[in-house]
């Protein structure tokens, strides 16, 4: 039963982000079809969960590749290095995060500042931080529809939620000069206490374990706190479910990845953010403000031990895969600019180790 516990693995193991999952699986499948290697096994564990497994060490019972919808954190990188893992970073492309609603609902054009005012737990009213008073979109700006704020979005465990908080909510919070100032302050700066007094941040939020926090950390805590009074509804990780719920409720908005808008263009429309519609070209050009980069990381120590890793990386970084007309665009990936792809492919296939 337990004899010969771990037999030599001859199949690539991939873990990580659920956002990159649809692309990694498509590449894995083609790789398995075209080569004599077994098709890699791809698990969707979330970016953080993938990193944890990936950085656990070197050996057959650890994964060879992890996908991430954000860059590796320095804490994760340190853990990797401590466990003898050398990650090779490959930037894959972009994904737009869409604020969408049913076609029967109102077409809106929001700014990131308005999104922050609609969804943050605390907002600035007359220069003071108070619990979010906005019940309707029109409370924020009269040009927005006169309907209750109802936004269906992913739970805190999701990378999509992280990215939305970072790009949309932080981007919106930065539009308030006082919060922007707070963000730029170093730990222990007396101005932090002044600002806290002025806008009403409690003492307890300014330090952690007796250490004064950086202004950026305090700002992040304000920007990332999403309201919990029912205006933001956690609808789970399944974007299809969010799309279906939007159909049933034309006044609700949802937050999901671009590929779901792309596939459901008959039922769902994407809101313009800052006057830019979420479209393939606007995301690729970087005009659409709520878009993020996607990555995968390869364990250099496993190359040559687990068969096929170089082939998988080569398949992923081919023009026919991640190029402007590659098959990943059919799956909803927004490609990198051509020059970045060329450089990225060279570095990936040369297995250049990542240095932070």
């Amino acid at each position, binding site marked *: 039963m337990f004899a010969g516990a*771990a037999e030599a693995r001859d199949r690539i193991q991939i873990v990580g982000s659920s956002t990159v999952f*649809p692309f990694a699986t498509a590449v*894995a499948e083609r790789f398995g079809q075209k080569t004599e290697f077994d098709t890699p096994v791809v698990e969707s564990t979330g970016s953080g969960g993938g990193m944890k497994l990936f950085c656990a060490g070197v050996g057959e*019972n650890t994964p060879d590749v992890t996908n991430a919808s954000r860059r590796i954190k320095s804490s994760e990188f340190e853990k990797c290095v401590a466990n003898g893992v050398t990650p090779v970073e490959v930037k894959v492309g972009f994904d737009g995060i869409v604020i969408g609603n049913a076609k029967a609902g109102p077409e809106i054009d929001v700014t990131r500042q308005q999104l922050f005012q609609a969804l943050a737990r605390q907002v600035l009213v007359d220069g003071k931080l108070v619990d979010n008073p906005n019940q309707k979109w029109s409370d924020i700006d009269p040009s927005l529809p006169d309907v209750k704020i109802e936004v269906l979005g992913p739970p805190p465990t999701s990378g999509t939620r992280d990215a939305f908080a970072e790009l949309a909510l932080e981007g919106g919070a930065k539009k308030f000069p006082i919060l922007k100032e707070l963000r730029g302050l170093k730990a222990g700066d007396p101005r932090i206490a002044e600002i806290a007094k002025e806008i009403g941040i409690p003492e307890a939020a300014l330090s952690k374990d007796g250490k004064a926090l950086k202004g950026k950390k305090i700002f992040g805590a304000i920007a990332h706190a999403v309201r919990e009074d029912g205006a933001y509804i956690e609808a789970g990780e399944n974007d299809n479910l969010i799309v279906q719920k939007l159909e049933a409720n034309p006044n609700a908005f949802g937050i999901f990845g671009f590929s779901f808008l*792309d596939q459901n263009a008959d039922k769902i429309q994407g809101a313009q953010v800052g006057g830019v519609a979420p479209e393939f070209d606007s995301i690729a050009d970087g005009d659409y403000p709520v878009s993020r980069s996607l990555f995968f990381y390869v364990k250099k120590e496993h190359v040559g031990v687990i068969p096929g890793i170089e082939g998988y990386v080569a398949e992923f970084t081919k023009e026919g895969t991640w190029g402007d007309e590659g098959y990943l665009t059919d799956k909803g990936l927004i490609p990198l600019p051509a020059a970045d792809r060329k450089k990225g492919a060279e570095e990936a296939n040369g297995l250049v180790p990542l240095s932070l």
Partner: protein
Amino acid sequence: MTDMANQAAPATHASGANFQSDAARRHLARRYARERRFRLLGMSAVLVAVLFLAMLLSTVVFQGIPAFTSYSLSLTVNVPKSEVDPEGTGDPAVLRRGDYELYLKQAMAEALPFKIGRKDRRLRNGLISSGAGLSVRDALIADPSLMDRPNAYSVPLSDFADLYFKGLVTDREMVAVQGTLSPTVDGKDAELLSTSSSDFAAILDEVKDHLAGRANGLRQKARLSQLSEKALEADLADYRRRLADADAETRETLEGRIERADKDLAAVKARIANHLAEADKLDQKAADVSESLELDTTLPSYLIRINDGVVRLNQVSAAGVKGEVLIPLSSDEDAAAVNWTMERLVKPESNRKLSDKEIVWLDHLKSQNLVSYGFNTTFFSAGASREPELAGIWGAIVGSFLTMVVTLLLAFPLGVAAAIYLEEFAPKNRWTQLIEVNINNLAAVPSIVFGLLGLAVFLNVFHLPRSAPIVGGMVLALMTLPTIIIAARAALKAVPPSIREAALGIGASRIQTVFHHVLPLAMPGILTGTIIGMAQALGETAPLLMIGMVAFIVDIPAGPLDPATVLPVQIFMWADFPEIAFQQKTAAAIMILLGFLILMNALAVVLRKRFERRW
């Protein structure tokens, strides 16, 4: 006496209670009413449950049915031996490496021999599945003699082409026509004039309504922006008022605010003017009779079939229409009303993933009898795939089977042995009581906990392979063990003591008594409990998440050590994919899983009915 008889004597009970008084009758009536209400409530509860079940099942079945059939295309492909198998060995390994896309593209160009640009070529080649090359490759591996000659291969169509033929992309309707149509073709553009003015009047009205709607939308936006304008103006006035009597510091902040508000106001004003101007332009367009109006992609599409060609309309005026030639006309002779048709595709082109061009090409392929419809064998023979038309349930069925076999082999003997020992042989002391309480508690532990246990013990300590059915089976065996033990003990308890006494009385040992007499009589109950436990295990996903069985696995597992996934996990994953066609696959997979569960439960019922003894 008579009047005595007329007065109904109140019936008195032996105990002297009166049942004929008004109060008693009212009480009785109330009691009967309560009973009726209770019965009614019970009935309606059952009815509601049945209704919900019927709703659930009918939506699943309705959505899943299309997945059981598929459309495929018969393509004549000529694969040159010199390119894919220069040695002429017919060795599968060599043939696997061949690039068949190229020959498929040539075949598609022959099947749709129309001059088109580079971008459209990509569309055309996308009508067949990206896995079409695989089906050609597999056919050649099976029979290498097919090389170097044109041969008709059956290849899967893309997911949207398949959905289109199933009628799930757009509704379509024929529009009645009356006039004689005279076409003038100039390269890609065609002008079509009809002798009957009523032929295109309806389209013209539709476009005008659409323009009016768009103009209204823009005016609505302008109205909303005017509200922002008012709010901003009020703010500005307020700031300016406060500026008069402000100290230096406030003055500075106020000036900053005024500057920002001024900028915002200018932007809002520009936006309003822009919207209104555009709305006026649209209204003008709609009112102008002489101008021909554009049919853009947000309106339903119109296709005219005339002289063996197809034209997609993009301009409409009272006299006639202009359009793009999608399939060339054989001549530009006039066509009488019976010789040309006009079709309306209800869903606008911008709202579907399949363009008018692709639809026209697909219709053309169908008219050439190249498209065939049949049972979807791929669905029952393939593993997972990112292409809906190539995805199958077989990998998950095999994975489920292997996992269940491991579960049964572990849980059944262990569970039954434990039950026999505890019920028939174990002394009744504190230890056995403790074990009993623990077993009963284990039955109520959430299944994810067993998954965590599996991760910690089987993967991290014993280093068994990740994602393998053997680990999944072990985890599920742990999960079903308490269920089996409890059911088996109940079945053993139900065997009358007289059986045991009779066996012992004729000289059987205790072991013989249990194994020759008690166990056979308890077996139907034990089996029923086991099957119920197994059915529960078959539907589990949570414990498998931790040990890596919730994964994308293409290859069909050959044994319990290969990576595999199971039916409920496959459903869970397909439900998460963005492609529309996966919704049908999800429903079909649910039907198959439900089928297995019903089969297992039916087996349990049959076993109980056949072998049960009533004492």
